[in-house]
């Protein structure tokens, strides 16, 4: 027999639901229930939680987007709705994470345009959505109100709440029944504190996904890995304030030196490799949602998760190095 894979842990990761089908009051073709794990990922032959989901990140103003993705996708990035549709039909993403980068324009004030963008994305894809609101406290209130209201009924995941900036996002989640990404700067205690703040404002635990902040591989990822591990250990040991699913997005992966300075012919594959290995490591640390920007990384990650879960990953390695049944 194998090891006791729960190592005496008694806790369980809480489940949260993303997306809503027509029967559930939304318009998505499926909804996901993430979380539910009772041990670390990829250990069990009959896993207590689903394989990590892969989200493709897109945006509504490509000026603020990686040139590598723009090169690969071409004109597609000019049309947010088509981009979302391609992410579902061609790139094979499980989720779409829409960044409203247009809000980063100086003195942005066209809140109504965001509603139109969200509507068009909701129409062009049937995948559940993650929506990233503004980066600017001045317009947070209006932006998140718009996101929440436009996507009412769809159970989207809204980002990103931080310790000094979580009220508008929490309010939108409460008012329109969405969930929230709670981000803390690579620190288990701050992650917990933010979850408590969100609870105090009235947001239930099953509406929170933890983002411990992910640095790119070789650029601080080890700190993120350690923070994720510790969050997960605490949860499995029974800390209810940390027992939410985690999301990881190593957004710096496409901008690091190795990718920037790669030979032009190799740049694209270098970017994909970097995203892939960072995403893979984050999944091993316990993240339930892995976000990437390069379309090619999506399928690589999905194949990798599949092969670990169906392959030799959960088989015990015997003392002599051979694999047991």
């Amino acid at each position, binding site marked *: 027999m194998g090891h006791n894979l729960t190592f005496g842990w008694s806790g369980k990761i809480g489940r949260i639901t993303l997306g809503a089908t027509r029967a559930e009051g939304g318009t998505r073709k499926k909804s996901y229930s993430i979380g539910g794990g009772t041990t670390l990922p990829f250990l069990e032959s009959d896993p207590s939680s689903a394989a990590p989901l892969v989200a493709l990140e897109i945006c509504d103003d490509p000026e603020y987007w990686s040139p590598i993705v723009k090169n690969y996708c071409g004109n597609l990035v000019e049309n947010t709705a088509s981009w979302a549709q391609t992410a579902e039909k061609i790139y094979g993403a499980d989720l779409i994470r829409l960044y409203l980068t247009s809000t980063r324009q100086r003195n942005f004030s066209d809140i109504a345009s965001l509603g139109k963008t969200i509507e068009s994305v909701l129409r062009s894809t049937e995948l559940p959505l993650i929506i990233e609101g503004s980066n600017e406290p001045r317009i*947070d*209130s209006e932006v998140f109100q718009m996101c929440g209201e436009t996507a009412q009924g769809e159970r989207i995941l809204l980002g990103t709440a931080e310790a000094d900036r979580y009220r508008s996002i929490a309010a939108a989640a*409460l*008012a329109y029944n969405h969930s929230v990404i709670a981000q803390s700067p690579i620190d288990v205690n701050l992650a917990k*504190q933010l979850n408590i703040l969100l609870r*105090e404002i009235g947001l239930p635990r099953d509406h929170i996904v933890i983002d411990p902040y992910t640095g790119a591989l070789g650029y601080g990822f080890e700190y993120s890995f350690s923070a994720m591990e510790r969050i997960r250990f605490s949860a499995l*040991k029974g800390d209810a304030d940390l027992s939410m699913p985690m999301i990881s997005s190593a957004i710096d992966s496409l901008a690091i030196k190795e990718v920037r300075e790669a030979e032009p012919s190799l740049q694209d594959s270098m970017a994909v490799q970097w995203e892939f290995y960072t995403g893979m490591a984050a999944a091993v640390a316990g993240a339930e949602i892995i976000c990437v920007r390069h379309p090619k990384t999506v399928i690589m990650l999905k194949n990798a998760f599949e092969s670990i879960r169906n392959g030799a990953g959960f088989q015990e390695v015997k003392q002599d190095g051979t694999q047991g049944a």
Partner: protein
Amino acid sequence: MTDVETAIKNGEAHLKKMITTIKHSVSYDETAYHLPISFALTGIAVHDQKTAGAVFEKTGSNPLVAMECILAEKTAAEGRLPAPFTGFIDDTVIRKLGYSLVDSSILGLALVVGKPPGPDSASAICRELQEKYMLTFLAGDVVTSLSGAGVKLGLEYRLIPLGPTPSYGIHFVDIIARVAMMFGGVTPGDIQRLLTYAKERAKAIVIVYPGLSDEEIAFVDGMRVLGFPILSLGDYQGSTWISTTPDTVVRRGMDEKGIRVHVTAIPIPMGCSPAFEGKSIRKEEMYVEFGGGRSPAFELLQMGSADEVQDGQVTVIGPEIDAMEEGRAYPLAIMVKVAGKMMKKDYEPVLERRIHNFVNYGEGSWHVAQRDIIWVRISKEVVAKGVKIEHLGKLLAGKFRMDFPQLLDAVSVTLITDEAKVREAKKDAEKVYEERDARIKGMRDTEVSTYYSCTLCQTFAPNHVCIITPERPALCGAISWLDGKIAYEISPSGANQPVERGAVINTLNGEFDGVNKFVKKASHGEVDRCSLYSVMEYPMTCCGCFECIALMLPEVNGIMVVNREFKGITPSGMTFSTLAGTIGGGAQTPGFAGISKNYILSDRFLQGEGGIERLVWMPSQLKEELKMRLTEKLTARNKPDFFAKIADETQAATIEELIDYLDRVKHPALTMKPLV
């Protein structure tokens, strides 16, 4: 003058009669909550006289219920009110409104009813409410009075005219009932939850002008059970309504409900976030530094009265940063004054300790230690961006208000860089520190069963847990047991948590079952056992903030203590900073412990190793600092000559010299039970 009690009696009787006369069906469109007050209170959906009567009876003839039903029938019969009146407001708008309340773009709700004496009175009050981010609802003659004065009304102006008579003020209550059901998790019929929500979370006040009918007075008074202060502007007597004046009514109401205007941004030319807390500023990166043994520096936070503390005021006394030479050390006093209705003197040291975190939140400011041994650096990078001494003050004033919105109403900061003035002010600060230390003196660990934890330093020492007892302050010296208790009161989910001592495992070492359990959990499973009074067996973990290090010297069977200020090499062959590097970071290192200066004076000091007789060496400066208090303690314990047996660097700089010295003075440690 209207006698409120009589009016209520008459009004309630009249309402009781009126509710039986409801004939038509009563309902509102565009809501899923039926008649929201009735629905929230009882879970019953009112739509006719029968159901209205049932709810009225079930709620003990509640005047709010009566008014809601009567007005609903009237609305059903007469149709929508003409502009500008809104009448009943539909759910979609309430959802948006609730959103603004949760995200704090609206701080609270106000209802203004009745007939103002002239147009200026109401417009001044409404302007003040607008400025304070309150959403104001109006009912009765106040509406015509305002439009007569040219005041713009509507949701976008945060002034909402509900209806032409004060009765329409009932919609104010149905809005709050719906917000409670939509956002507060209140299930219809759960009256207790609803009342708790209304009292504790709904930030609502009611302002009453004269001219209300008896029924209207009864309904307004009915809002008192929801915990809304009823503020009257004349003409009402004989009640628990708060009598006030137009000039003070808004402030009084907001005070009563604890509604405060929040600080949301700090206007300084550098980033300010916990994300920067872990970074340090190395010598090459620093523009100037303060304290750290290089120049006199201290920090002090004290409370003042509301008139004394002007919120946001920052004063710099002495040269600003542009008059300072790069790479040098300058004197600095950080003096914070705070005021607040709930502020207590006991909270001062706890808040003072937050200066450490807040300064470190600055992108280019760095802070270690506390009280009069602080060490602060400002980086070249941010000085180039325009950061000045003044901005440290702005950062502190802003962060204190942001992080303690319930506790503090006003924060001002004085920063002194003039050497003579710093030294002068430092004398007063030292008196304050002494008074604070005296407050906890004499309390025993055995007298309480609850200790407090501190995990403030886990940002950089992830598994470190301080256990603070009356006789053993936190190793940084800045948080006593009392401070821990208060910090927990102020912020129940913060870094100081109560620790039940539990069963005794080892009396001498101070090892307790409850403490072990807590430490195991708080150290994320890394540390299983923790003795409070031992350096040798399962000592407490260390972060990096300890005032002193106690370490075992096997050659002399004793323990030495070195403080942060001592720059020389100790008999262990290492300096303080080398030692600090060896033991910090949250590790448990038998033979070493991080301690506060005051702990040396405690009866529990080194209890596990046989008590203070184990103490063989301290720097002369520390000896001098503790001399008076320590000799007093020793005399009380009948060991008056022991103090002279403790060596310092002038008598013994090396371990060989220490062995000689201890032999010469016949130090008791030499003949005590072997430590190893």
